């Protein structure tokens, strides 16, 4: 009995200790599930948009071209991110840091661009809190919720960056890098979808 207890306690430590390695795979998987939930939020918004538009009395709008520029920036950032990931695979610490920083900067540029886009929208008399024009509010909500997720990805990037600075062998942290890359591409792809969606359903 006593022996069994000890044995048990030993195992306990082991599960805790081994967690880092054990969870590698599950973490990636969990990220996919998380992206699924994010996708559902936007599925909800875009369908709500279509349903609402179908009901008539819809005020059409022109999407500011700033959003096209931000689309370009996000594509660029994804390229940086991917190169960074390849460099991590080659265990090239310096390059990893460089490209992560580039991704980070272009991510911030994206957000700035979105913000400028809001300025354009205001110039066009499209406000977020407009009691008479729901189409304007929709643009803000859809892009805003996307931006909120992008900020979470920026935080993730910073974590990756800190990790990259700290570890000797960046290759050991490849999974973290990979998860971050996946998430980043996902948000980029999501933005392209949202942009096209808004463009096609003005």
């Amino acid at each position: 009995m006593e022996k069994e207890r000890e044995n048990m306690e030993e195992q306990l430590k082991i599960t805790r200790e081994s967690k880092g390695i054990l969870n590698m795979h599950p973490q990636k998987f969990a990220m996919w599930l998380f992206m699924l939930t994010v996708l559902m939020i936007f599925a909800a918004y875009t369908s709500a948009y279509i349903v609402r538009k179908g009901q008539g009395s819809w005020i059409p709008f022109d999407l500011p071209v700033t959003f096209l520029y931000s689309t370009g920036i996000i594509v660029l950032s994804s390229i940086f991110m991917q190169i960074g990931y390849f460099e991590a695979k080659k265990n090239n610490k310096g390059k990893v840091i460089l490209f992560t920083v580039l991704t980070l900067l272009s991510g911030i540029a994206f957000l700035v661009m979105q913000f400028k886009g809001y300025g354009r929208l205001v110039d066009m008399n499209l406000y977020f809190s407009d009691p008479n024009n729901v189409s304007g509010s929709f643009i803000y909500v859809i892009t805003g919720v996307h931006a909120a997720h992008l900020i979470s990805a920026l935080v993730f990037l910073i974590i990756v960056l800190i990790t990259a600075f700290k570890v000797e062998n960046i290759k050991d942290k490849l999974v973290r890098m990979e998860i971050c890359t996946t998430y980043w591409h996902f948000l980029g792809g999501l933005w392209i979808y949202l942009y096209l969606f808004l463009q096609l359903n003005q």
Partner: protein
Amino acid sequence: MSEIKTQNVHIDSHEEHHDDHAHHETFISKYIFTTDHKMIGKQFLMTGIFWALIGGALSLIFRIQLGFPEADISWMRPMLGEWITPEGRLDPEFYLALVTMHGTIMVFFVLTAGLSGTFSNFLIPLQIGARDMASGFMNMLSYWFFFASSVVMFSSLFIETGPAAGGWVVYPPLSALEQAIPGSGLGMTMWLVAMALFIVSTLLGGINYITTVINLRTEGMSFSRLPLTIWAFFITAVIGLLSFPVLFAAALLLIFDRSFGTAFYLSDIYIGGEALPQQGGSPVLYQHLFWFLGHPEVYIVIMPAFGITSEVISTNARKPIFGYRAMVGSLLGIAFLSFIVWAHHMFVSGMDPFLGSVFMLLTLVIAVPSAVKVFNYLTTLWKGNIVFTPGMLFSIGLVSLFISGGLTGIFLGNSAIDIQLHDTYFVVAHFHLVMGSAAFFGMMAGVYHWFPKMFGRMINAKLGYVHFWLTFAGVYLVFFPMHYIGIAGFPRRYYTWSSFETFSNIFQDLNAFVTIAAIITFAAQFIFLFNFFYSIYRGRRAPQNPWHSNTLEWTTPIEPGHGNWPGAIPTVYRWPYDYSKPGAADDYIPQTVPYSETPESNTDFENELAALEKESGVEEVDETKE
């Protein structure tokens, strides 16, 4: 090659330096901020029980109003204060708040968090052979988000303007305009905050459940050998993951409408003769978004109960579950269909009638997989060697309640009939039988069945029988009469109908009857409560495998520690339903027994498997690694 092997390999390499953790588990790390899935499951259970009592008590208050509208209830004033008018009546506004909070609490806090949270957490690692959830930390967060959500929701009961009062579905404009009713103010804000936290909790839990089931199954635990409990929890989590974000999205728009001046859901509203500025919003849009969660939600509630019932019925009928594949298939079918029937809650919302008939068709189709489940339960029971444990009785109770309530669903699913029945007590009767009571019975079945594993002691069966029969008779006496009241046209969520002749003369007796039955049923739950807490401390010590069950959790020590199995994790060789197998020595063969050890009961195919086992060296799997 499963993770387990990696784990074992890992064990060796780290043998030397593990002296710092675990030895001194403090009270806080063991009972409060624990990452042990078993303790987290119990935390969900205790919180769920607490909420069930609150939710039940609220319902008694409004039931007294419905059953005895003339009664003087000033004796409740010490508890309810200003909500009792000077004449000793219930405040009508508070009535609405009671109904709303009762619904919210029961659907989300008891039957979602209390049921899925308890049993998914407790059983998934134990039954698939894992040491814990994929991420103990996320699991802990999941509970604490739920706890925070509970605190907010609970506090909203005590604020001056009262809790949310627009119904558990919080339809705008009631929920969107602060000035609509008192409950639309701070109470509604707190409701939204609580639900946002709740959704985060559910998603964290769900991601964990799914990841664990997919990634951490032990050697040999293929999907076709998973106990049906796990299948049910797994699919439930998938449904939750797909539907809760939509509620989150809908709630966010509601928040914008409430506080940021948008008009997603609002249009053409006059208050006191004055027009509000909002134009062009659509309240029906909210209904679509809400029910896209709302309908799957009802299956999130019932599916874990299905899973538990499958397990308990098979074990206690001493028979393999009838149609394992059909059971899994029907779960998948229900899960799929549950996403495309939501508009049956909106037949009379002004929706296009053609669209209505599409949803009607899809709704009626869902009766098919539901019926498959019922028939399989009944055929599993048929000619079984039934052992009537309290858990078994509650499972059979679930089947009965699910049939009674499911039949009325078919009435409601017809859009033409629903014009008469919508928003009457008929609907209330329907969902309390099919969802409320059935899922509650599933939860009770689970508690009685896994109590020995949870607390290492047996729960008293005699008291369990008394509890069962009182509850079983009770819920039928409460909810069956509601069908008649509903067909007569009583609307739900109304404070009083006594100004209608028919209702006050003919149906008042029936309403009073329902109320008395509800009080007795509620009182009967205290038998359970006593039994539960008494047995935790004083119950008879549990044997290793009290129900002679096949699943893995019974191979752990009677009171498993963190990590579940002291030695290596057992390997699985067969499905979990080898009960009363012809030729076998015992009437059950646990999942850990290889086919090569049971030549007397093997089929030809299983003999081939046995040969394969020999080739791959059954016994060596773990021993060599130690």
